[in-house]
């Protein structure tokens, strides 16, 4: 009886392996978003909104880095600024421009909240992501589920 159970758990492990192999292949389908697009999803998903996609290329055609990263205080870290809608309508972060004066206003929710649901916060195309062997895990990266 015990041997049957053990046998079954091994079978399970094998089929989980198979599924994982397939999933790994799926995960390999890479996105081809524009270099330096930032996905911001600290809170959006949890609030039932799509994640925010911030396009660097589009903004750097119009502004130098200094405007956002010195004058407006955006730190060099995807997700590191803890942006919320309250701050935005207060004129901070995106709200310093998306106020109907410098750029279109905040009621255009789906212009910013345009990412595929579930995409984690990160900057697209970074060197670290492209390395064959990822050198480290970001401290705030979700923990791997425990091995079955």
């Amino acid at each position: 009886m015990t041997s049957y159970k053990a046998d079954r758990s091994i079978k399970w492990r094998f089929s989980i392996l198979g599924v994982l192999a397939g999933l790994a292949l799926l995960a390999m389908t890479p996105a081809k978003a524009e270099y330096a697009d930032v996905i911001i999803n600290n809170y959006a998903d949890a609030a039932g909104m799509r994640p925010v996609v911030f396009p660097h290329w589009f903004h750097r055609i119009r502004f130098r880095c200094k405007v956002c990263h010195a004058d407006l205080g955006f730190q060099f870290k995807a997700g590191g600024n803890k942006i919320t809608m309250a701050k935005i309508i207060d004129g901070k972060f995106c709200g310093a421009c998306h106020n109907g004066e410098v750029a279109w206003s905040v009621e255009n929710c789906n212009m910013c909240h345009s990412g595929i649901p579930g995409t984690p916060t990160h900057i697209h195309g970074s060197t670290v992501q492209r390395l064959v062997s990822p050198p480290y895990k970001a401290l705030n990266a979700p923990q791997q589920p425990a091995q079955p």
Partner: protein
Amino acid sequence: MRQQLKIFVGSAVLTLLVSAPALAADAVLYNGAMQHGERLMLADVSSSNTFNRNLKKEKDPNAAPSEDGYHDPENEGTHILQPPKDAYPGLPTTEFGNHVDWVKAIDEKKLSPRWDRVNSSEEPFVMDMDIVREVKASVPDVVFPHRQHTEWLACANCHPAIFIPQKGANQINMSAILLGQKCGVCHGKVSFPITTKTCSKCHSKPKPADWSPPLSDATLKNPWR
């Protein structure tokens, strides 16, 4: 054992079937040098023998938002966003990153991004000062140009948080840069990426003709030499 193998193969095949459309899309996107899924073995040998196991090629750079795998095509706003390919024509090109040479674009006056949020006539404070950093390895020495940086950035973006403003006061090496520190805070994320095609942008000062790499201790003391 055979039973277990059957289950393994069975479930792998099943998930493969599920992911087949994704893989097919992959193959099309890799069209440049289509070796991605190239089969090496004709007989039924392990399917893990593909020509390139680890090479990841950049696919279709500058894809439109609705096709880039990041923006949700089911979101109406996605289709109003500007595709990069509409914005880039006329800008000088490169073979990496956004495929735009942002430095040249400003130098050639093709672009003039604002230095101030609202006042479009404010000019940046550009400082032309090169810092040369001798590199111990055989690659050319690094020249850090303040000019191109101060076109885009304020001094306070780098000093003192990323670099102490004193020549040679900062420990910099390639591993730190690849991990996103020092020059890698920006390069490899927003400014030009770190790839074989860009090494020479930073490593731009050739070594003296009589330079040769120092021999390692293990070589000098090699008993089997």
